[in-house]
């Protein structure tokens, strides 16, 4: 029996090549998209699930409530004393560990969070060198290639390397016990080598140095401040069966035990490691986190494209029912039941799906490198070695086969033998309305995807071409100038001797990286204060970045009172001038002209017990120093011409003329070598940071564009099949119309008019759907485009044009044949 079914299926596949190709290719593309997106979703959802104790590992973060104009702070990390205290005071916490060093890789670079690691004459910058408590190695089961996890970080000046870093220094030689020099200061001994971490973890590290190395160098005080820097990524391992909710409920009391009123303005949050990648959305993550909404959206798109392909299958199978009707009749007359026939047709569609899946797997293999390039995610597709994946593919084949085959199977098996055997075959008119409905549904999905793609593209290009309020181009950033110390002014002067260097300035962080250092500000004698973010800059900052001055003046060496001086023994009130941006002036309730010249107090503590007496000397234009997702923050600029604590300038911004760029860059490098020969220069272009800031959106845009193009392609493939079938069925009608005087144009109009109406009906579904989703997406941006009607009309026109063209070509071909020939067929 199976053989008879197989024979018939294969005969059908090979005898009608166009329809078979449309069915198989359409399904293959649909299944391929689904697999690709499925792998992406699996990758995104799979972060940090591979740790043996993943379910019991939580990250502790310290949140600060918003105060005045300062934003709430939600760092990924916590303060240093929290880890040991929480482990000591909560019996259900088995281990706690801190990891210090570095924020997200991009901001880290701008901050100069790179570490210099040297062995004899081999020197490398290591971006992701972290300092960690030894307990970290008990919480996370890294894969150890050499060394003992129980002792590797136990002593000061120990270092654990990842495999690839170890290889860079030592090649194939055994690195254990060898020593390296860290930042030219400390000697550290290699105590272990671990396998490089997989892509699917939020942890990001090339090397781990024992945290005690730092306390030995700087003293234990650096780990004792309960309200100091939140620079310590803190992990806890719960005991089996521990109740997270119960721990969380006791955290405010824990804070209050150690900090007076600690729970009033801050809190601690626990998050399971497996949730960090998609759900954290905190500042200062090590890696750019994933986007849960994007993951869901792409999953929905995958289902959409697959549905479009299934609909093609249903439509073509039922439209071509005529060719199977007699077979159904014969089989029934010799005793086949409806169940037999349903099974036969379902089996057939599953077989076709299996064929499509094989092709889809090949397509995915081909598409993976391109996908990695535009999504930035390296996906694994090792189906031969992953039984679960293989089972998934088989399951997918089965489900798609059943979904795509169900309607045709029930439609075909319902033919009444008493009619079809007499040749009274219905032309499938009954199913025509249903088929039209399905085409409408397909085009609704495709049109909505086109709208979404257009909106994402326009918003991204809007963000990238938005007037930032400053000039980001032709600026070279050099990090780590704090290491130059008092040599900075001389360094700057040397740079300026090159005609290619237009101007040089510095700041404690560069545009497009953020920091939270807020102070309180109030008018002298006033009572209400605002919290405002501080930016420490050198002279010529506003000039280098071409930021407009709205009132007053900017910092100048002509005014000796401009540089900021903190209160000290000989100068208890401190001093220094202020420049604020327009947003800060507005927050304080002043127009730019009113703000300039105001005497103000800068409160270094919220209660102004430590304060600086200052004057606002100028107001500058608002600048988009951050992504357009956030509104422009009020900023307060202070001047510090030398890199000195506590607010050191650390990043030099060098505006270059750009005429002989190579020579100018060589001059910058040469100058750096003259001042700091033992340290490589860390420089990059500011616009690289800018591009990186919108990378996620651009990747999303490209993925969307690719998948909506595929959706339209698959939908049109279906139209192509339906159109050729319907022209074939209506050959006689076309012939008669032509004999009666109809032109080719009339006939093309007849066919395209029908499909045109369907596409128009599809917009009724597509528009509200796309509007709702894209409205929400745009709401995530403080600065955004209007969701105008143009997007919708254009998308419909695109869908209409493609659909009409597809059907038009087929109809024109049919209409162009000699009518006498087609009439003679009958």
């Amino acid at each position, binding site marked *: *029996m199976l053989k*008879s079914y197989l*024979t*018939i299926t294969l*005969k*059908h596949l090979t*005898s009608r090549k166009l329809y078979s190709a449309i069915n198989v290719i359409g399904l293959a593309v649909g299944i391929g998209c689904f697999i690709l997106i499925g792998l992406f979703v699996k990758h995104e959802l799979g972060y940090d699930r591979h740790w043996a104790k993943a379910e019991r590992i939580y990250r502790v973060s310290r949140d600060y409530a918003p105060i005045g104009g300062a934003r709430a702070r939600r760092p990924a990390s916590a303060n240093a004393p929290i880890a040991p205290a929480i482990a000591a005071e909560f019996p259900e916490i088995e281990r706690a560990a801190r990891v210090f060093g570095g924020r997200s890789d991009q901001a880290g670079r701008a901050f100069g969070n790179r570490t210099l690691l040297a062995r004899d004459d081999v020197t490398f910058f290591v971006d992701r060198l972290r300092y960690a408590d030894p307990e970290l190695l008990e919480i996370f089961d890294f894969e150890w290639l050499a060394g003992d996890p129980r002792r590797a970080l136990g002593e000061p000046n120990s270092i654990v390397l990842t495999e690839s870093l170890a290889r860079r220094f030592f090649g194939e030689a055994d690195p254990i016990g060898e020593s390296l020099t860290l930042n030219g200061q400390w000697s550290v001994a290699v105590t272990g080598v671990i396998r490089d971490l997989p892509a699917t973890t939020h942890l990001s590290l090339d090397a781990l140095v024992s945290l005690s190395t730092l306390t030995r160098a700087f003293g234990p005080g650096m780990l004792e401040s309960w309200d100091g820097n939140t620079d310590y990524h803190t992990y806890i391992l719960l005991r089996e069966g521990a109740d997270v909710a119960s721990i969380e409920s006791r955290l405010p009391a824990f804070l209050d035990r150690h900090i007076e009123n600690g729970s009033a303005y801050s809190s601690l949050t626990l998050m399971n490691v497996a949730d960090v990648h998609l759900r954290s959305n905190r500042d200062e993550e090590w890696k750019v986190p994933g986007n849960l909404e994007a993951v869901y959206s792409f999953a929905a798109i995958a289902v959409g494209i697959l549905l479009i392909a299934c609909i093609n299958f249903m439509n073509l199978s039922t439209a071509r029912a005529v060719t199977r009707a*007699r*077979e159904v*009749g*014969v*089989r*029934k*007359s*010799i*005793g*086949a*039941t*409806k*169940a*037999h026939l349903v099974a036969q047709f379902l089996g057939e569609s599953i077989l076709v799906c299996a064929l499509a899946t094989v092709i889809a797997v090949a397509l995915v293999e081909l598409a993976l490198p391109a996908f990695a390039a535009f999504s930035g995610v390296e996906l694994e597709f090792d189906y031969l070695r992953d039984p679960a994946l293989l089972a998934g593919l088989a399951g997918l084949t089965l489900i798609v086969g059943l979904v795509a085959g169900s309607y045709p199977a029930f439609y075909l098996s319902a033919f*009444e*033998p*008493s009619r079809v*055997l*007499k*040749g009274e075959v219905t032309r499938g008119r009954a199913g025509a309305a249903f088929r039209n409905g399905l085409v409408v549904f397909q085009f609704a999905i495709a049109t909505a995807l086109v709208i979404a793609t257009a909106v994402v593209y326009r918003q991204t290009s809007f963000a990238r071409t938005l007037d930032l309020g400053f000039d980001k181009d032709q600026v070279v950033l050099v990090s780590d100038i704090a290491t130059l110390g008092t040599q900075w002014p001389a360094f700057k002067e040397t740079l300026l001797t090159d005609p290619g260097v237009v101007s040089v300035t510095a700041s404690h962080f560069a545009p497009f990286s953020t920091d939270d250092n807020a102070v309180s500000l109030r008018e002298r004698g006033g009572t209400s204060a605002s919290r405002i973010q501080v930016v420490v800059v050198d002279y010529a900052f506003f000039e280098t970045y071409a930021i407009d001055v709205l009132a007053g003046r900017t910092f100048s060496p002509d005014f000796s009172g401009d540089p900021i001086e903190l209160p000290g023994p000989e100068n208890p009130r401190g001093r220094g001038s202020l420049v604020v941006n327009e947003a800060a002036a507005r927050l304080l309730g002043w127009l730019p002209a009113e703000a300039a010249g105001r005497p103000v107090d800068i409160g270094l503590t919220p209660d102004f017990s430590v304060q600086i007496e200052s004057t606002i000397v100028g107001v500058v234009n608002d600048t988009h120093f951050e992504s357009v997702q956030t509104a422009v923050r009020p900023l307060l600029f202070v001047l510090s011409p030398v890199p000195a604590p506590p607010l050191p300038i650390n990043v030099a911004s060098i505006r270059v003329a750009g005429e002989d760029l190579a020579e100018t860059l060589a001059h910058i490098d040469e100058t750096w070598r003259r001042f700091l020969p033992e340290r490589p220069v860390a420089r990059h272009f500011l616009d690289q940071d800018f591009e990186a800031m919108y990378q996620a959106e651009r990747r999303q845009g490209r993925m969307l564009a690719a998948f909506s193009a595929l959706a339209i392609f698959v939908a049109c493939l279906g139209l192509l099949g339906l159109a050729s079938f319907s022209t074939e069925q209506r050959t006689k009608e076309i012939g008669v119309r032509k004999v009666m005087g109809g032109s080719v144009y009339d006939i093309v109009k007849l066919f395209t008019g029908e499909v045109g109406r369907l596409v128009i009906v599809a917009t009724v579904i597509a528009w509200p759907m796309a509007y709702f989703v894209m409205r929400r997406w745009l709401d995530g941006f403080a600065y955004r485009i209007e969701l105008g009607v143009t997007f919708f009309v254009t998308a419909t026109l695109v869908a209409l044009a493609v659909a009409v063209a597809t059907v038009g070509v087929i109809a024109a071909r049919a209409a162009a044949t000699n009518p006498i020939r087609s009439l003679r067929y009958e």
Partner: protein
Amino acid sequence: MLKLENLSKVFRTSEVETTALNSVDLSISAGEFVAIMGPSGCGKSTLLNIIGLLDNPTSGSYRFLGEEVSQYPERKLARLRKHNIGFIFQSFNLIDELTVFGNVELPLLYQKVPAAERRERVEAMLEKVGIMSRRDHLPQQLSGGQQQRVAVARALVGNPKLILADEPTGNLDSANGEEVMNMLVALNAEGTTIVMVTHSHPHAQYAQRTVRMLDGRVLTETTTRAALAVGHG
């Protein structure tokens, strides 16, 4: 073999109601060869479909092999059909994608006959209808007469008690038509009951009894001379 009493069939669409069969009474005994005649649209094909269990009557009684089947569900009808009835159609209705062998084998597949026996029976049947040399050909490679012989072989291979033939010679030239009629007569002589719808008076003469229909009713039943001649010869 079968007995129809006061049997009616009404087709309803949204606008019209057509009475295809109107209080038909008919009984056919085992071993009979009955021809049904009448103008187009008189209900003879509908009658054949109901006799063949492809369709249910609207009202009345139908006893097939002693079972009241008029209200049987599809599944039970299919079961009865596959073991007892063979169909021969005017348009042959062979499956284009299957070879001659594959077409004839089909009923045995639904009857779950083991492969070896299947092969034996199909080949014996192909010999019997004289088409063995074409066993691996596809239907479109055969002449009309040959196709109808394949269809006859397919109808017979399951050893049905009843053969229903719907204008079996309608698409054939006279020589091929005669050949098919001779095959049916020979089968009938071996004891198979045959009910045949035909437009052809000469071919109706092969039957023992002719039922004439008009407007959904049985008009007359006559015993034919030729049948007597054959029956007594």
